[in-house]
């Protein structure tokens, strides 16, 4: 198979599903003729027509509410947020309507919300945010966050085929930097299953998104000194793969959670809580977390670098954990 970028993988996932299922359609700002702010849907309107690649007014609440309404009526909309930051302008539609409808009266709302997420791109406070934790805490929503082209494609298929609202966090930093092979038309990656990208028994790193490669990088540096660290890429955040995390920690006895999102109230807290409850006897050291500072995302590069997790920061935390 040929190497494609993470962005091309998303595009493949979208187009193959649109070919397969006529009920799938896209809506969002500037996604049609322009192909989207990041060109993910470039060429889609020519190929699938204006009706299935709908350019919308600048109105996130309308985009998300319209998607939910169309989903209730049998379609499978994929709504694009131009940046995941802007999802806050339509927040209510997701957390109160889309998330609660099946529970309330048993009808499915199969919709996908594409959220170009994260930083490391000098985007500043309003174009770099990680917005997953708000939705992680909202029962009724599923969340995926691929870190490789293969997962990006396979999870897009899973998200579109799922009968629930799925937030798809595609990382802007990875769009053109992550490259790799991808699966075929029916290679669907099950939502809820993690991927162990590195094996080891000295400690476990649980992470997702852009910090997966940074974690592997740190693990490899540490490996030179003989400690093999396991790195688990969650891929799915809601539901997340408790079994894989617990199995690994029971082997390693040490857990480091790494995420790009800010520390306090982030997903790492929940993972730490689950492990300290269910793998208590196996822990040989405190559970540690590496995450962003509890501040907005600063703009200037030196501050941005100081704000986000980095391989050296992860390495330092790992060494401390291993030395404990």
């Amino acid at each position, binding site marked *: 198979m040929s190497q494609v970028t993470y962005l091309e993988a998303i595009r493949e996932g979208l187009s193959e599903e649109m070919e397969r299922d006529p009920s799938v359609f896209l809506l969002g700002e500037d996604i049609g003729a322009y192909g989207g702010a990041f060109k993910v849907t470039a060429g889609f309107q020519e190929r699938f027509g204006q009706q299935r690649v709908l350019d919308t007014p600048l109105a996130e609440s309308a985009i998300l509410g319209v998607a939910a309404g169309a989903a209730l009526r049998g379609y499978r909309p994929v709504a694009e947020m131009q940046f995941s930051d802007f999802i806050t302008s339509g927040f*209510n539609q997701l957390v109160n309507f889309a998330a609660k*409808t099946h*529970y309330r009266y048993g009808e499915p709302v199969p919709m996908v919300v594409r959220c170009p997420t994260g930083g490391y791109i000098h985007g500043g406070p309003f174009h770099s945010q990680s917005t997953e934790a708000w939705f992680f805490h909202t029962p009724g929503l599923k969340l995926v966050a691929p870190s490789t082209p293969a997962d990006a494609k396979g999870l897009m298929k899973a998200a579109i085929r799922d009968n629930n609202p799925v937030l798809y966090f595609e990382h802007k930093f990875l769009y053109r930097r992550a490259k790799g092979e991808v699966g075929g038309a029916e290679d669907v990656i099950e939502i809820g299953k993690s991927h162990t990208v590195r094996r080891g028994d000295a400690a476990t790193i649980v992470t997702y998104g852009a910090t997966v490669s940074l974690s592997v990088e740190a693990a490899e540096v540490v490996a030179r000194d003989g400690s093999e660290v396991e790195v688990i890429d969650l891929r799915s955040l809601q539901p997340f793969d408790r079994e894989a995390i617990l199995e690994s920690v029971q082997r390693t006895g040490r857990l480091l959670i790494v995420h790009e999102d800010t520390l306090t109230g982030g997903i790492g807290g929940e993972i730490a809580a689950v492990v300290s409850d269910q793998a208590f006897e196996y822990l040989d050291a405190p559970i540690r977390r590496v995450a962003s500072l509890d501040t907005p995302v600063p703009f200037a590069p030196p501050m941005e670098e100081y704000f986000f997790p980095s391989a050296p920061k992860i390495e330092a935390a790992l060494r401390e954990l291993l030395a404990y």
Partner: protein
Amino acid sequence: MTDIHRPEELIQIPHGLGPEDLKKLHYFLKLTQGFEDRLISLYKQGKIVGGVYTSRGNEAVAVGTAFALEARDVLCPMHRDLGAALVKGDPLRELMCQFLARGNSPTRGKDSNLHHGNRERNTLGMISHLGTMIPVTVGAALAEKMSGSGAVALTYIGDGGSSIGDFHEGLNFAAVQRLPFILVIENNQYAFSTPNHMQFVCERLADRALGYGIPGVQVDGTDVLAVYQATKKAVERGRRGEGPTLIETITMRLRGHSEADNFSYVPKELIEAWQAKEPVSRFENALLQRGVLKEADVQAIEERIAAELEDAAQFALDSPMADPEEAARGVFAP
């Protein structure tokens, strides 16, 4: 629209509506009223948990709009639209179970009031957050347009709800996409305790249509036939693919916001002035005056409705609550 200060004014019977239709409309108006009488007494007996919001003053809007729809059309009733749910075919037993939060209700007791939807009946289930259902119903209209079903989608918003952002985003989206969507403003003078002059200062909410490039009409919300006609016109426009319509219905909320509200903030004179145009009796009198109905017919209808409601209420009261464990089920669709 008709002058609210001329209640004696006669209701005009539009072409295309035969005596049977008029009797149906009358039946649904009476049924709405009777159902809510029943809810109020159940509430007073402490048999209803949570709040009861009646549609007193809004019956003609709910019934008249829904009566202009076909089965294939999508409808999202809001909290004053019991009559619309009835016209659209929600069975009385189901509705009663829903208000009594029974385990066999459409929401299995997980939600209450009119917060349920049904794919077969083409209804959408509202949430409490006002405005939310406008984009959602616009989405349903988009689906009907894409599928070429020829169906339209209709929902409601109050004078108060008209202030929220989703009103603007939803209407504009529908207008740009020329969707078969109808938004009915139920202007009943108050939003909870907030009078219109503290909610908006434009002359007519219907004028907001101009800002979306769609037709905006104002209609007497106490005249079920006027409401029906305005809606019918909007439905036909929608079916022709000409886009959405904004209909502002003018009426008065004749009871408290909920049964817990004594609405002492509403001037008594105002209530009295509007009582003269109470929508159900207004239509009933018109039909009696025109001889479409006789006193005896009215009595017969009332007896029929009483029996139907008695059956529904008993059925609901006899229905068990859901198992507690049901609370843990159904968050995600399989």
